[in-house]
């Protein structure tokens, strides 16, 4: 892996004005220990070989860069899907949990905690904990536990304890608060965060572990095409799959980077999760970034049909690149995402996750010329969304 050609935060974890570690003193020793261990271990040859070996033989990487012929025909351009949906556990989330679990193991940790919204990160964490023989506690909003009950069952089968977050709105942001509180109370545990959010060094570290996505895209594309991609499209909740898909292309200004956000029922509806459009700068979960909040600085509850995008913040790396204009944001409504999901099933025989369906829906909003190379990061598969799809498409 190369890390030289990408955006790195400064010493205190700031990407421009965004990022940092806004944490209580109680967490400082644990965060410092994590930062030091990450710096000293995760760039060694030993780490890299273990990490890459697991990605290859356990996760099933490299994932295909698939030329979507029928999509290309429909949109009159060349469209490729990066098939993260084919990863073990069904989404890109496991790239990060593999990296962090190796770090946790190296640090001698025995208890892993995680937060989860849709349950994908929870499942990916429970999976690597089972693999490494470590204790796993996953915090999940009480409301999400009902919405995503199959994933709760998967985590339990994998041996994790799932604890409901019963405070606040009982969703992902509250599960994150609970996981942070647990970490304060048990600083010897390892907090395995699932996205490019939270205090430094998490955004940097998670982006690094997900950067394998763009590294592969780069290598795979070189064998098929003579030019770099013109556009890379990825959905953004906290933004880990987008960070991974964009990572090695940030420095190439010719590559347009498109972050697709969940507009929920519409930007004006009051039921949206389009943070970069509706949010403003502030502090959430230990990071200065863009977040959805009221005029008094209270974090507001987002809405998206996709639990994975239902988060009121966005990673500081994305806040930074959006503010620079390096990344462009496109909002997609719930109904548009559902249509895109169905289109993907019918055109390519792939049932995408609802999150990834948002990225696919952005194709409708863009104009292309035939020579362009478009990459859509298909971050996850749709098995976990069958309940939602069943309700939406009951008249098929």
């Amino acid at each position: 892996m190369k890390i030289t050609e990408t955006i790195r935060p400064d010493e205190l974890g700031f990407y421009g004005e965004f990022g940092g570690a806004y944490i209580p003193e109680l967490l400082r020793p644990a965060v410092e220990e994590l930062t030091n261990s990450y710096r000293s271990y995760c760039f060694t040859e030993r780490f890299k070989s273990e990490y890459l070996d697991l990605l290859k033989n356990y996760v099933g990487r490299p994932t295909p860069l698939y030329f979507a012929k029928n999509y290309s025909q429909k949109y009159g351009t060349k469209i490729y899907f990066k098939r993260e949906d084919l990863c073990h556990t069904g989404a890109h989330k496991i790239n990060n949990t593999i990296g962090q679990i190796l770090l946790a193991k190296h640090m001698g940790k025995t208890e892993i905690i995680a937060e989860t919204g849709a349950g994908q990160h929870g499942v990916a964490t429970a999976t690597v904990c089972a693999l490494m023989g470590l204790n796993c506690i996953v915090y999940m909003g009480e409301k999400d536990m009902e919405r995503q009950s199959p994933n709760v069952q998967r985590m339990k089968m994998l041996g994790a304890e799932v604890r409901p977050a019963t405070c606040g709105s009982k969703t992902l942001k509250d599960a994150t608060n609970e996981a942070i509180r647990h970490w304060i109370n048990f600083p010897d545990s390892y907090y395995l965060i699932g996205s490019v959010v939270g205090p430094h060094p998490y955004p940097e570290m998670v982006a690094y572990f997900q950067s394998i996505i763009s590294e592969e895209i780069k290598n795979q594309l070189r064998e098929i095409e003579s030019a770099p991609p013109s556009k890379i499209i990825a959905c953004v909740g906290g933004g880990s799959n987008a960070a991974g898909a964009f990572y090695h292309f940030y420095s190439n200004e010719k590559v347009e980077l498109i972050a697709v956000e969940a507009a929920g029922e519409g930007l004006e509806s009051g039921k949206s999760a389009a943070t970069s459009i509706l949010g403003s700068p502030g502090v959430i979960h230990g990071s200065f970034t863009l977040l959805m909040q009221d005029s008094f600085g209270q974090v507001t509850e987002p809405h998206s049909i996709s639990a994975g995008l239902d988060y009121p913040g966005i990673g500081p790396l994305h806040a930074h690149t959006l503010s620079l204009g390096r990344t462009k944001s496109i909002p997609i409504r719930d109904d548009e995402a559902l249509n895109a999901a169905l289109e993907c099933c019918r055109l390519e025989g792939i049932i995408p996750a609802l999150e990834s369906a948002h990225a696919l829906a952005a194709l409708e909003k863009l104009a292309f010329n035939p020579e362009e190379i478009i990459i859509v990061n298909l971050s996850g598969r749709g098995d976990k969304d069958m309940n939602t799809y069943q309700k939406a498409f009951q008249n098929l």
Partner: protein
Amino acid sequence: MNPFKKTGKSVSIFITAGYPKKESLTEQILFLQDQGIDFLEIGIPFSDPMADGPVIQETSSIALKNGMNLAVLFEQLSGMKEQIKIPLVLMGYLNPILQFGVDSFLIKCESAGISGLIIPDLSFELVEKKYQHSFGSSKIPLIYLITPATSDSRIAQIAQLSTKSFIYLVGQNKITGSSYSLSEHQVRYSELQLLSNGVPLFLGFGISTAAQKQEASNYTDGVIIGSAYLQALSKKTEEEFLENLLS
């Protein structure tokens, strides 16, 4: 001069502004001052209080539902300035302050006669890097937390920044309202007393009884009580609670 320095030990109470009722703050300040409390911490409610246990989470969320916010808080304080005889400290997470505007917040604090600010998610490194011209150059001192795990050199740095206020000693690495035994940490506490270099050291997070208050007086300049008082307040047994505590 340091308003938190006194001969003898101090007792401080933390209350959440806007709890149990939107208008409770005024009444609570006067009541606690009459009871002989030495200084007060007024909590600014926040939707996502990550270092707080269930009691303060609950009081914050009720306060927010009651319509408490910084504008209301300052309005309530300005109406009673003449009646307040003890130092007041505002304690809250950074985000509501950022949205209010740091400069206007500091001006309002000054005119309300606030003696110190506790912002748990704002370290002195961040103040130096990001807020030197606002928090860093304000007359109102920032009060920093330390824990038994905070390094000696960091405590020395914090002590230097705290000559006009105090150091908030978090008794153990636990969120607010957790129970614990003081004596487990007594060796460390004695060291901290030396490191704080004359800056008052007040112990909080998990203090709930007169016995703990008594024990704490061996190592510190006083105690701060939050969750236990708020719990009494919710049961309307606050008078009894204070009577036991202060006897």
